[in-house]
């Protein structure tokens, strides 16, 4: 027998169709209804007393849940109050947005009694939430004050809202009364602020106000005056904090002063301190403590929040994940060929006088892994840097061993997977270049001179290619192991091979043959400024014979040089602009390296070169060009230095004097043309003609001196006279130029002017 008289023995298959039926026909609700309701036995109520203990008839329909809950809530609040009193200063207030719907539901009078226990339950729940601490510094903890408005209202109402429940009508009535009626005399313990002002405070400073305050006011409002329009509407629009301190929820002004500091909150200017009663020492102390705690809390909370933010992604990667990523990153950064990959950095370091190879690895680790890595590892391993370096070396070597496939095809995959690295980016085009070395060799062999300017330019670019290649091979010296002799030997062979190909590309031998009337290829190359720039770069690597060969080519084909051919001043005392720039490049790039070889030559070679120069060129023309004069000066001064050093034998000395006399006799009568024409003002104070004259004066005999002086007399005197009128810095230059020449003959400018 059942309590309700159901026939529990009803066959199940009658209630639900069997499964097969269900599948086939779906559920037919007409069939499933089996008139069970008709079979209900409504009798048997006589046992209800035994079952429920109370007669069902005595239970009314006016359920007063609120009254009972109010009683229960009072107890709960007492408990909560005691708990909160322990925690009130240590634990910050936790607002929760879940309060909002309850505020908005205020109009339903039947609902608000159930609110209080619910909110306490939420309070307890929120107390358990550790995450809530991140909100703490947004709404900092502040001393809880009951807004005077609320307190006074409650006083005026003279009600204990937790115990008495008002009907909606009652509430409205009281509200109206409180707003229209004159205010009751001020309470001794609580500062009375005009209610409009307080309302303003709550509205304006709601964000800065203690959530506890607003919560308390809400609590009170919801309890006592659900229809205060000015405050509730404002609160409803805001995320009102949930926490209701029981101390505030029970608006007992007599209890308040000892619990909560009565001092108006100092930052809240709307509360006039002069109105506030003097606080007790206890309150002051509590407040100080509060502020201290508050500061400490804020710091701690900020720290916690930072940790929290960082911790959000913590632990997502395992150790091996991290090291995998790190390895990928490092292997991308570590270069197998730092000499070319980090070219500019390396050259810069060399210029700055650092040795990049020394600092390389450790510097690299510091740069890319940072000091934190070092520090963290430092605790575990004794030499973390070394350990990491070893790891890097292993990585690099393993990367070297593995053949670098740029494509990878997986089984079942459609298409191929490109494996790109920072060094080998995805290749978009695959153009096959013609194999150059074989063809260029053949072209070198049957070389027949440059026919066009483009050929010359191409030749220059080829030399640059080879030179860069050679220089890179040269830099590899730093990565070589000095102990491995075999390695060094192969390196040296490659170097000499590369140098040999450069030499071939310069066509020096072809230029020396000079059989044809065509312009020698090397002269063509060095007639371009970029070709000239090759020479100082290349020169130190060449052998002495090769250097002399280059000098010979230049000297033998001197009149083929553009700057000599077109290097004379025109009637206006001007030079073509391109010749001027070319000349300066020549003096900057070609003459210094040639000067170094000339200064190492013996007199025999000088004689040879000098006579060749005279034979192949028109000396009278030559002395009118700057470059020609410079070369003549170069040889004469070298010969004179050798002659005066006394290390040369008599034959060579005599031969030199003969050669010089040939030159002197040829240019005799033209010595005045060594100077730029008088209208070439820009070149008037250049020293090269005076240097030439000085060199000639050193080499010349006394009769030749007479010729020199008589031919250049006008210019010398002119310089001396004009220097007296010219500004001092120009005068100094002019006098020193003249003195270059005069001193070589044992004279001085001062003697002439006297």
């Amino acid at each position: 027998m059942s309590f309700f008289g159901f026939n529990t023995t009803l066959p199940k298959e009658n209630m639900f169709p069997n499964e097969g039926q269900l599948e086939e026909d779906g559920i037919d609700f007409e069939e499933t209804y089996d008139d069970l309701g008709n079979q209900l036995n409504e009798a048997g109520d006589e046992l209800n007393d035994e079952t429920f203990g109370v007669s069902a008839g005595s239970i009314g329909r006016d359920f007063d849940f609120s009254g009972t809950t109010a009683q229960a809530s009072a107890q709960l609040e007492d408990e909560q109050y005691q708990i909160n009193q322990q925690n009130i200063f240590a634990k910050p207030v936790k607002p929760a947005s879940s309060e909002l719907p309850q505020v908005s539901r205020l109009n339903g009078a039947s609902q608000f009694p159930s609110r209080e226990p619910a909110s306490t339950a939420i309070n307890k729940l929120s107390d358990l939430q550790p995450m809530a601490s991140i909100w703490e510094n947004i709404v900092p903890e502040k001393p809880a004050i009951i807004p005077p408005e609320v307190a006074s209202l409650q006083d005026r109402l003279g009600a204990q809202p937790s115990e008495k429940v008002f009907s909606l009508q009652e509430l409205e009535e009281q509200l109206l009364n409180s707003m229209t009626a004159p205010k009751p005399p001020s309470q001794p313990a609580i500062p009375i602020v005009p209610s409009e002002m307080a309302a303003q405070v709550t509205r304006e400073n709601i964000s800065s106000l203690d959530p506890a305050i607003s919560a308390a006011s809400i609590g009170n409002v919801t309890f006592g005056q659900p229809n205060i329009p000015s405050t509730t509407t404002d609160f409803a629009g805001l995320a009102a904090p949930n926490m209701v301190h029981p101390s505030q929820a029970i608006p007992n002004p007599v209890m308040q002063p000892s619990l909560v500091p009565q001092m108006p909150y100092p930052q809240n200017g709307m509360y006039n301190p002069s109105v506030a009663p003097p606080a007790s020492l206890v309150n002051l102390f509590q407040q100080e403590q509060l502020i201290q705690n508050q500061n400490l809390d804020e710091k701690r909370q900020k720290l916690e929040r930072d940790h929290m933010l960082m911790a959000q992604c913590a632990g997502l990667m395992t150790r091996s994940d991290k090291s995998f990523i790190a390895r990928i990153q490092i292997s991308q950064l570590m270069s197998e060929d730092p000499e070319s990959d980090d070219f500019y950095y390396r050259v810069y370091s060399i210029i700055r006088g650092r040795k990049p190879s020394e600092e390389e690895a450790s510097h690299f680790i510091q740069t890319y892994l940072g000091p934190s890595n070092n520090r963290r590892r430092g605790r575990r391993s004794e030499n973390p840097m070394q350990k990491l370096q070893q790891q890097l070396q292993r990585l690099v070597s393993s990367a070297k061993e593995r053949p670098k496939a740029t494509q990878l095809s997986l089984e079942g995959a459609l298409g191929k997977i490109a494996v790109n690295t920072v060094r080998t980016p995805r290749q978009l085009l695959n153009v096959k270049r013609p194999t150059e070395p074989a063809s260029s060799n053949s072209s070198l062999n049957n070389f027949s001179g440059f026919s066009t300017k483009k050929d010359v330019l191409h030749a220059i670019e080829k030399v640059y290619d080879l030179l860069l290649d050679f220089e890179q091979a040269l830099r590899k010296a730093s990565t070589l192991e000095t102990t491995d002799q075999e390695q060094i030997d192969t390196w040296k062979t490659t170097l000499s091979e590369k140098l040999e190909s450069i030499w071939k590309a310069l066509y020096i031998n072809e230029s020396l043959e000079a059989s044809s009337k065509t312009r020698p290829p090397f002269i063509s190359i060095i007639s371009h400024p970029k070709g000239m720039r090759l020479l100082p770069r290349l020169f130190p690597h060449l052998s002495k014979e090769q250097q002399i060969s280059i000098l010979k080519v230049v000297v033998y084909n001197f009149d083929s040089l553009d700057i000599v051919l077109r290097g004379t001043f025109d009637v206006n005392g001007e030079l073509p602009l391109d010749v001027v720039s070319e000349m300066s490049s020549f003096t900057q790039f070609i003459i210094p390296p040639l000067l170094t070889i000339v200064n190492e030559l013996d007199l025999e070679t000088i004689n040879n070169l000098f006579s060749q120069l005279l034979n192949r060129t028109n000396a009278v023309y030559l002395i009118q060009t700057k470059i020609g004069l410079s070369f003549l000066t170069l040889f004469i001064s070298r010969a004179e230095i050798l002659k005066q050093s006394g290390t040369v034998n008599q034959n060579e000395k005599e031969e030199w004097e003969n050669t010089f006399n040939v030159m002197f006799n040829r240019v005799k009568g033209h010595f005045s043309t060594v100077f730029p024409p008088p209208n070439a003002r820009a070149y008037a104070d250049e020293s090269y003609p005076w240097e030439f004259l000085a060199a000639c004066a050193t080499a010349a005999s006394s009769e030749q001196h007479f010729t020199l002086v008589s031919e250049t007399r006008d210019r010398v005197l002119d310089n001396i006279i004009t220097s007296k009128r010219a500004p001092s810095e120009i005068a100094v230059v002019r006098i020193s130029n003249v003195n270059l020449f005069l001193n070589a003959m044992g004279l001085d400018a001062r003697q002439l002017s006297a």
Partner: protein
Amino acid sequence: MESAQAVAEPLDLVRLSLDEIVYVKLRGDRELNGRLHAYDEHLNMVLGDAEEIVTIFDDEETDKDKALKTIRKHYEMLFVRGDSVILIAPPRN
């Protein structure tokens, strides 16, 4: 024979003009004359001692001779972004 090997791709021709004066025509009616110091595959270029000639057509000007104006600017060193380059040529004399 030699020159055939010299030009494997169009940019090789540009390479021959390195350190030479080149004429560059740019979008937006701009022209440049300058010494080519460097270039890359995008035709980004560094020009030295460059002169820029900007041609402006003034459509409010009724006189046809005055409608076209040229502005000349001089730069010691100039970086030219390649996407505006129309052509590179040896200088027009």
